[in-house]
């Protein structure tokens, strides 16, 4: 069937007694100029039509575009209770039409665009928040129980797993933690120096950098970096394990996924975060030191003395403790979101995003609470 010169597609309809004859002809290839079924509609609108048949002896090449039109005509016929005769259509075309109509449309399977009312949405999101909060609390409770179990030596816990996580979230994070905290030290020193210079108190830049980093910035920045780095990794890792049914495999062996997966991650962060915080403090102070000595002409000796004098033991320990606490938050949010992950690739992405968002929110919010408590207790 070679048609060197394509003839334009035609679809016409004419009345023959109580039937309508639809003539289709030509090559149905030029997508821009294909006729529609309005001619048929017009004939059918006349009324009194009992049957519809086709005439296709001049039909050239065709594809799905023609099929779609014939199905549209078939729908028209079904609506007007008109008999559709496809016998005169070419064999392939008739077979495709029969095939496409072999299984009736499953009407209740089609997704309905449900538009819940405002109140319903409020109620649903309220319930969702409630169950989400309850899940978080039970996760927290489980973490306390499993730590107690670990202390009694009864937890299903492999130390090797913990060391592996420690390696990944400790030494391997030194670079980024160092860089960010160094820059934070620089920025603090710059901002502090310009403001303090107006009062002739540039020397207090050392105090500012030291107190700010040791009490707050060191642990917060490290917490945020680890949340983005390690918390996200936990969520993605556990989420993928969930997708692969690996978590269920633990459950069916009677191994608690919590003790086996969450506990080592939490312990690793609890242990590593204080060390990272001390490292962050040192680096940030050295950043401030560089700015002050190289650009503000503060004598190195004096800067160091002021730094040592301004740091109180309580402030230092507070920073370290907060570091560990943020470690718990990072591990729990990361693992919680990973465990809650659905069973496809998209939900792993959602779990990761949600782990980082929840983690950072909790870190900042609880740091605010710490600040209020400390000011009330005069620490």
């Amino acid at each position: 069937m070679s048609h060197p010169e394509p003839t334009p597609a035609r679809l016409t309809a004419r009345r023959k007694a109580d039937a309508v004859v639809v003539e289709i002809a030509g090559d149905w290839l030029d997508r821009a100029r294909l006729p529609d079924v309005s001619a048929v509609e017009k004939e059918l609108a006349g009324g009194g039509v009992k049957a519809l048949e086709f005439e296709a002896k001049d039909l050239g090449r065709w594809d799905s575009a023609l099929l779609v039109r014939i199905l549209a005509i078939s729908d028209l016929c079904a609506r007007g209770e008109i008999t559709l005769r496809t016998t005169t259509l070419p064999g392939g075309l008739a077979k495709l039409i029969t095939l496409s109509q072999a299984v009736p449309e499953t009407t209740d399977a089609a997704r309905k665009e449900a538009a819940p009312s405002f109140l319903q949405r409020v109620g649903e999101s309220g319930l969702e928040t409630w169950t989400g909060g309850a899940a978080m609390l039970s996760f927290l409770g489980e973490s306390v129980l499993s730590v107690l179990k670990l202390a009694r030596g009864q937890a299903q816990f492999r130390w090797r797993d913990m060391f592996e996580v420690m390696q990944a979230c400790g030494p391997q994070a030194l670079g980024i933690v160092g860089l960010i905290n160094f820059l934070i030290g620089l920025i603090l020193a710059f901002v502090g120096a310009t403001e303090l210079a107006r009062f002739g108190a540039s020397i207090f830049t050392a105090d500012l950098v030291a107190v700010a980093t040791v009490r707050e910035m060191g642990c917060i920045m490290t917490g945020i970096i680890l949340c983005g780095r390690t918390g996200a990794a936990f969520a993605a890792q556990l989420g993928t394990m969930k997708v692969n049914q690996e978590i269920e495999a633990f459950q069916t062996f009677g191994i608690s996924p919590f003790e086996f997966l969450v506990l080592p991650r939490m312990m690793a962060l609890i242990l590593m975060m204080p060390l990272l915080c001390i490292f962050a403090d040192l680096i940030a102070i050295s950043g401030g030191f560089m700015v002050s000595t190289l650009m503000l002409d503060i004598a190195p000796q004096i800067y160091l003395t002021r730094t040592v004098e301004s740091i109180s033991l309580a402030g230092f320990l507070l920073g370290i403790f907060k570091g560990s606490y943020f470690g718990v938050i990072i591990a729990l949010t990361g693992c919680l979101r990973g465990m809650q992950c659905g069973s496809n690739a998209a939900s792993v992405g959602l779990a990761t995003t949600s782990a980082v968002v929840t983690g950072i929110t909790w870190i900042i919010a609880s740091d605010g609470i710490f600040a209020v408590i400390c000011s009330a207790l005069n620490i």
Partner: protein
Amino acid sequence: MNAERASKIEIRDLTMAYGSFVVMRDINAQIKRGEIFIIMGGSGCGKSTLLRHMIGLKQPAKGDIFYEGTPFWQMEDEARQEKLRSFGVLFQGGALWSSMTLAENIGLVLGEYTDFSTAEIRDIARLKLALVGLKGFEDYYPAEISGGMCKRAGLARALALDPDVLFFDEPSAGLDPISSRNLDQLILQLRDSLGATFVVVTHELASIFTIADNSVFLDPNTRTMRASGNPREMLKHSADPAVQQFLTRGEAAAHPVAPPS
């Protein structure tokens, strides 16, 4: 009580639901010790969900599963964990722990629940892998071997604790016909040598007729079980058109089987 003693596993009046959506209701079946029990039915009818109920991953909406007469879902958590240790489960994709080698996958379970030394655990892992034809792959990670091998390694892991009951979720899915047949032979050999009870979710007819002793047919349209018993008997005697269609790949419609007199 006697009936309970005789059957290893009994599913009684089980209704499965996701929230308010009922997947299947009123499932009843009895599985004897050493039997290969098939859960069959069309795609998406809740076969795997039934399996998840049996291995403690999903709580029934109603009814319970009795293991040697004890209701599984009414047990204390501790007792249920204990019970789970006598099960072996092969998940659809193998579900091997991807951060561990094959030997570690098997060794982890042994290390958790037995007093074997590290060297003994390694020997047992080698043995289990050898049983499924994966000798020499001990130090491979699941990502480094093929899907069929993952499935066999998953079977080796399921065998780690010498289980009483083995659960298989679509063992032949994604396997070529030869591997699938070999897996069926392996299941039969394991049954004969271990005397374990097998629960297999599958819709592979060849598999069903080769290995089944007993079965339950789930029908998604009526949302309940349509038939139970030996599938070969079902094929011969069942008058239910849905069962006939399933067991003959839809060819029964052309040659209806006369109901048994």
